[in-house]
C-alpha cells in the first residue's frame, strides 16, 4: 500500500498572510472606495443636470410673430435655420391654457402667433439665432432664456469634471498606499525573498505572490467601502429626486465595479513595486 503524503498549506511560501495580515490596508482602501463612490455619484448627478438643462429649457426659445405673419409657414422657415432642431407652433388652446392662471378664461382674446424652437445644442450658433430669426421674420420677438441656463449647464459640467478629478486623485492616493504597504511587506520578508531568489524564483513569480495578496486585501477593503456607500447614495438620490426627477440614475454598476477596479490598481501597483525592488538583485 502506498504511503500517504501529508497534506500541507504551502501555497504561501513568502508567508505573506502573516507579514501582511493587518487591517490597515483594507480599512484605508474602504475609505478610498467610499470617497470614489461619492465622486462617481457627484459626476453622475452633475452630468444628469447638465444634460437636462442643455436638452430641456436651455434648448428652447419662444418666438412671438407679428399679427401679419401666418404661423405654419413661419414655423417652416424657422425650422430651416441652423441650430434649430424643431419649430413647434403653439395652437390657440395651448396658449389659452398657459395664460389661464393669470388672465382667467382668455378664449375670447386675440392672441399672437407663438412658435417654440427646440435647438440642437447651446453652441455658438444659438447665440446668433435671435438675429437670424429677426432677419427671417422681421418684427418677430424672441425670448431666449438660454444664457443663464447655459451658465448653469457650464457649472454642472465643471462640477462633473471636478468629480472625475477627485476620482483620479482617490485612485492615485490608493495606489500610493498600496506601494507603501508593498514596501513594508518587502521589508518584512526581505530574507525570504532573497532565499527564493537564490533558489531560482523569477521576479514575476515573487511579484505575483505579493500582488495577489495586496489585490485581495484591497478588493476586500473596496467591497466594504462600496457596501458603506450604497445606502448613502440611495439617500442622496432621494434628496436629488425633486430637482432631477426620474432622469437621475444612480451609478450602481460603477459602484459594483469599484472592488475589481481597486483590486486591479492594487495588483498592478504592487507588481510594479516588487519588480522595481527585485531589479536591485543580481
Amino acid at each position: 500500500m502506498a504511503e500517504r503524503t501529508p497534506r500541507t498549506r504551502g501555497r504561501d511560501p513568502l508567508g505573506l498572510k502573516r507579514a501582511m495580515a493587518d487591517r490597515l490596508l483594507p480599512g484605508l482602501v474602504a475609505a478610498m472606495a467610499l470617497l470614489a463612490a461619492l465622486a462617481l455619484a457627484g459626476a453622475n448627478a452633475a452630468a444628469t443636470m447638465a444634460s437636462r438643462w442643455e436638452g430641456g429649457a436651455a434648448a428652447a426659445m419662444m418666438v412671438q410673430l407679428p399679427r401679419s405673419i401666418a404661423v405654419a409657414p413661419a414655423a417652416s422657415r424657422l425650422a430651416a435655420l441652423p441650430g434649430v432642431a424643431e419649430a413647434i407652433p403653439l395652437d390657440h388652446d395651448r396658449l389659452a391654457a398657459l395664460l389661464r392662471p393669470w388672465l382667467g378664461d382668455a378664449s375670447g382674446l386675440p392672441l399672437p402667433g407663438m412658435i417654440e424652437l427646440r435647438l440642437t445644442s447651446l453652441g455658438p450658433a444659438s447665440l446668433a439665432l435671435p438675429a437670424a430669426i429677426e432677419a427671417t421674420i422681421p418684427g418677430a420677438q424672441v425670448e431666449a432664456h438660454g444664457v443663464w441656463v447655459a451658465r448653469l449647464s457650464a457649472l454642472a459640467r465643471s462640477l462633473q469634471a471636478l468629480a472625475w478629478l477627485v476620482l483620479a486623485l482617490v485612485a492615485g492616493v490608493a495606489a500610493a498606499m498600496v506601494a507603501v504597504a508593498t514596501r513594508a511587506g518587502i521589508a518584512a520578508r526581505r530574507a525570504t525573498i532573497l532565499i527564493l531568489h537564490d533558489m531560482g524564483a523569477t521576479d514575476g513569480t515573487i511579484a505575483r505572490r505579493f500582488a495577489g495578496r495586496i489585490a485581495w486585501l484591497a478588493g476586500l477593503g473596496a467591497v466594504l467601502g462600496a457596501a458603506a456607500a450604497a445606502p448613502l447614495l440611495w439617500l442622496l438620490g432621494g434628496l436629488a429626486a425633486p430637482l432631477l426627477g426620474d432622469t437621475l440614475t444612480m451609478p450602481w454598476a460603477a459602484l459594483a465595479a469599484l472592488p475589481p477596479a481597486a483590486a486591479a490598481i492594487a495588483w498592478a501597483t504592487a507588481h510594479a513595486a516588487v519588480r522595481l525592488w527585485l531589479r536591485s538583485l543580481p
Partner: protein
Amino acid sequence: MVRLDNITLRYRPNATPALNGVDCHLAAGSFSWLMGPSGAGKSSFLKLLHLAVRPSAGQLHVMGRAIHTARRQELPGLRRRIGVVFQDFRLLPHLDVLENVALPLRIAGRGERQLLADATEMLRWVGLGERLKARPEELSGGEQQRVALARAVVARPALLLADEPTSNLDEAQSRRVVALLQQMHRLGSTVVVATHNQWLAEENPAAMLRLEAGRLVEHG
C-alpha cells in the same frame, strides 16, 4: 561544469577584492573541497557559483553559460539547477520542515502531489521522516543542517554547493552530512564543499581548492 578565468570580485568599487585573479575549472561530476582560513573568500567563491553575485572582472561560465555577460532573465533557470547548503541553513521559519524542503520544487512549478511526495522522500533520506510538520526552531542544529541539505538536493541539482555544512555539528553528524553529499556526487552532481575541517578532507580524499586572501593558491 564551472570555469573561472581571472575572476575578480569586489562588493564595492575600490574595495579590497574578495576574490582576486582566480582561475579554475571544475569538471562535471567532480567533488571538490574548498578550504582556507576565515576571510579567505570561500563564501564569495560559492556565491559566485550559485549566481548570488556577478564577477567584477573576468569570465565566469556555469553549466556552459557565460554568467559575466548573461542577461538577468537567464539566471533563474540556471539557479534552479544549483543546490546550496548555506552555513546558516536559511530555513524559512514560517514554513514547516516539509514545506521548506518542497520549496525548490514549488519554484520549479512541480505539481502539488508530486512535490510533496518527493520532499517527504528526501526528508526520510536524511533521517527526518518523522519530523515533517516540525518548525525549524523546534529542530536541533544538526537536524536543521540535514533539512537544509534535503532542500538543496530535492530538485536533483547538477551543481551542489555547501558552505561549511559541518560547522555546527559534532563528528558523527559531520560524517553523516558528508556521506550524504558524497551520495549526491555518486548520483551525478558536481559537488563543492567549503569547510574548515581538515580531518574531513583527509578522511574523504578529493580535489582541493585552497583560497588565501582572495587568491586561489591550490587547485588539484
